[in-house]
């Protein structure tokens, strides 16, 4: 069994195509892992029968030579993606019994390419959170230092934990302000948020429509490339989807970094960032320099306004996007004697505190009399942040930053929402600018927790992002496995 789990996605795919292993063996190994690591709480729903039947289907195709790019690869799906006939709750009580009759475009793309579904992965409720603690069904435990019960990060905490714990060969995530990159950093794996518009949002439960973007969480950069190849693509059903063909990312893995200019923004080395992270950030700069990159100090002057702007724009959109959970047509409904009372009880009971907090913030900032001071100003800040990046990309090709200011923290320790929001300080600016970013593990801190470094590319330069990330990955040579991972 363990050899099967040792294979990363690219290796497993090769082994499947060379008929060294079958998808059924691989899928069963992962189903067993899910069972072995169930205490981590990464999965909300396991679809064993479906997994096995899809694996058998894949094995037929592998045999008859019609294998598709992800043929037979067992993956987990963040519960924000609507999956046909499989419960989709967005980790919220308000959708606890919701079974979509439709499949999100991104997951459909994955099934069309032969991937096998293992189940649905926990996340923060409606993807609002940075610790996976807002999930209605309870915390997910980071497989690193598992006895200390560390947070896997969020909101794609279940996805990151499952990949790190080897209970999924890869997973999908969604990233609004860092929800792929931060948990990837916390769990010692690779998490890639593509350019806004690369992956269709159709069928993904909406949190903040102008920011939400799906992406892969994987063990390696190559795995991320293979996953994103399948996930991305233009979709007429999403008006904000980019009508641009993405080249095959697997062709960009070994392009190297020679002559590339890497920007080091001075605003990302502030107080409050942990020493170990600073150390590995500096190491990463050196590694890239050693590989032939030109390191250039740059400035993104409006960075400090990114987080406040984000916490206005995202809640504003969320307050409107979540209005549809009203108990009228689907989801939980609390019976009451009047319509208003039904709304109050349904939404009062159905949403958790963090979601309610953001709905209230969002409602407030859009209210007449406050709109200009908050929402409109935040949009102006967003434009300035975009311009910051545009200016910097005139001088450099990629930007290197830490993924998070700290490594993972113990569950239940960060009670103050503002401290929690600071987790996203390095990931939010790229989200506001719609730029692709990837976090990959480069080392462990003193306590043995993974450290993530983020690379940010210009719009639609996922191919370049992959090649630079691959260089950093090779230099860092991160080959640690979480103590809580399936054996």
């Amino acid at each position, binding site marked *: 069994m363990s050899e099967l789990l040792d294979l990363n996605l690219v290796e497993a795919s090769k082994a499947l195509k060379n008929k060294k292993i079958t998808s059924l063996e691989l899928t069963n190994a992962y189903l067993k892992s899910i069972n072995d690591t169930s205490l981590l709480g990464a999965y909300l729903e396991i679809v064993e029968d479906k997994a096995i039947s899809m694996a058998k289907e894949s094995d037929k195709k592998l045999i008859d030579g019609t294998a598709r790019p992800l043929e037979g690869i067992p993956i987990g799906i963040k519960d924000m*993606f*609507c999956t046909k006939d499989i419960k*989709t709750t*967005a980790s919220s009580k308000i*959708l606890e019994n*919701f079974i*979509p*009759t*439709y499949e*999100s475009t991104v997951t459909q793309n994955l099934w069309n390419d032969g991937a096998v579904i293992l189940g649905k992965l926990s996340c923060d409720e409606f993807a609002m959170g940075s610790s996976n603690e807002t999930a209605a069904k309870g915390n997910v435990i980071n497989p690193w230092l598992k006895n200390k019960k560390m947070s896997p990060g969020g909101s794609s905490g279940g996805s990151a934990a499952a990949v790190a714990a080897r209970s999924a060969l890869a997973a999908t995530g969604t990233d609004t302000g860092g929800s792929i990159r931060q948990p990837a950093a916390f769990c010692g794996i690779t998490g890639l948020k593509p350019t806004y518009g690369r992956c269709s*949002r*159709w*069928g*993904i*439960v*909406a949190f*903040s*429509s*102008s920011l939400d973007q799906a992406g892969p969480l994987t063990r390696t950069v190559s795995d991320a490339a293979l996953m994103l190849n399948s996930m991305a693509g233009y979709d*007429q*059903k*999403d*008006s*904000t989807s980019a009508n641009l063909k993405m080249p095959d990312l697997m062709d960009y893995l070994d392009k190297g970094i020679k002559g590339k200019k890497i920007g080091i923004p001075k605003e990302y080395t502030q107080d409050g960032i942990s020493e170990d992270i600073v150390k590995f950030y500096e190491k990463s700069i050196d590694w890239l320099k050693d590989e032939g990159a030109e390191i250039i100090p740059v400035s993104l002057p409006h960075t400090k306004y990114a987080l406040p702007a984000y916490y206005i724009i995202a809640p*504003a*959109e969320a*307050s*409107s996007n*979540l*209005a*549809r959970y*009203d108990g*009228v*047509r*689907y989801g939980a409904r609390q019976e009451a004697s009047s*319509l208003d009372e039904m*709304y109050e009880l349904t939404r009062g009971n159905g949403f958790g505190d963090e979601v309610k907090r953001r709905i209230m913030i969002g*409602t407030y900032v*859009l*209210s*007449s009399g406050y*709109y200009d001071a908050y*929402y409109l100003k935040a949009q102006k800040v967003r434009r300035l942040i975009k311009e910051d990046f545009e200016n910097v990309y005139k001088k450099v090709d990629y930007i290197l930053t830490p993924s998070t200011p700290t490594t993972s923290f113990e569950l239940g320790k960060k009670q103050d929402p503002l401290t929690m929001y600071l987790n996203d300080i390095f990931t939010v600016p790229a989200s506001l600018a719609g730029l692709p970013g990837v976090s990959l593990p480069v080392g462990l801190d003193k306590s043995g927790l993974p450290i993530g470094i983020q690379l940010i590319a210009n719009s639609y330069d996922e191919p370049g992002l992959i090649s630079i990330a691959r260089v950093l990955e090779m230099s860092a040579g991160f080959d640690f496995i979480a103590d809580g991972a399936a054996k």
Partner: protein
Amino acid sequence: MNDTSTLKPGHIQGETGIWEMVIGLEIHAQISSKSKLFSGASASFGSEANRNVSLVDAAMPGMLPVINEFCVEQAVKTGLALNAKINNVSVFDRKNYFYADLPQGYQISQFTKPIVGEGEIIVDLNDGEQTIIGIERIHLEQDAGKSLHDKHPTKSYIDLNRTGVALMEIVSKPDIRSPQEAGAYVKKIRSILRYIGACDGNMEEGSLRADCNVSVRKSGEEFGTRCEIKNLNSIRFIIQAIQSEAERQVDILEEGGIIDQETRLFDTSTGETRSMRSKEDAHDYRYFPDPDLLPLEFTDSWVQNIREKLPELPDSLKKRLVKDFGITSYDASILVEEKDYVDFYQQVANGRDGKLTANWMITELFGALKKDNLSFSESPITSENFGELISLISNGTISGKIAKEVFSEMMKSKKSPSKIVKEKGLEQVSDDTEILKLIDQVISNNQDRVNEYLSGKDKLFGFFVGQVMKLSQGKANPGVVNKLLKEKLK
């Protein structure tokens, strides 16, 4: 009460003087589109409840709106037809409020950047006068669903068939000064919408509805506080509601009160308006740009292309009818009211007597349809048959009087007029010998009156004509009868 008969329409005589109405209209016109504004579901009327509902309309999680380009084109077409500025960039906003028949919890509309800006139209009033009414803007928006409160003692039912159907909201400037002007304005807008095919204008089915903003003031003063009367679905109700609302406001002001800005409903049973919600209860809609949709952008050449495809519109058509067919401007304005009328008219009048055609259409055809409670499209008379009738009158085959008889037979049997004339033997008799026979008969039957006439009682001539016509069963050509009688009675 004061004598109001001399007051101008839109004026109200109060104790303190004459009050003037200030009216602005928001017309909600459903776009004639097969599918909804942001989903592929059918927009047809009258389906079984909740049959025309897509995942998007029901606001299922993760569903996204995609703009229906046909609807955008109709709005641009409408803007061009109303001589309005087309905004090459416009933005969809979310109007947020909770209601059971609003699945998304917001209506997608256009708030700060509508698709069409300012324009103006010429409105024909009943007295033949014209006035110009300004258009403030036109924006695209989704319709809401329908709540049914009378199906169950404690529950409400929801029908989402209308949810997401494309509407244009056409907002006038506060340029309207009387209920009659408001009615004429709606009529004109409806007519233009039908000409260009952007909306079927069917007020009974709710394809066209209006919200009326009404205030009163003394002439020359600033605008007063306005009240909005919601959701009026007939021109008659619009006129009644405005009149009654303005009178209510005058009563309050005359007694030293003030008008509360509020939303009101028109009660068709009492003919009065009543309060729906006050300004304080007004929703804070928290408008913001819909992040699911990109701004609508189009090029000048795209707009130009639509402009070139616009059909001839009522105002220019009216001028042309006066010029080409020599009819009065008043008749022309009636004929251009509906595209169906003018198409029919032109088919008939081409190569025939335009004035005669107009008279017959407006007086006889419209009159008969109204009497039988039929709409124009339900008319039993085709343009071919109607044209034939006009020809039969023009070439003297039948007299005007007989024509009326033929016409009423056409309404009943749908037969062609020549067939009716033949079957009933109604051809006009113009032959001298035929008519002389009749004259001889009348003379011999009325010898004493002939003597009276010959002794100077000239007035009796009409009596003889009448007798001859009667004897001919109306078929004798009156001109010939006149001529021959004069000769005979010399």
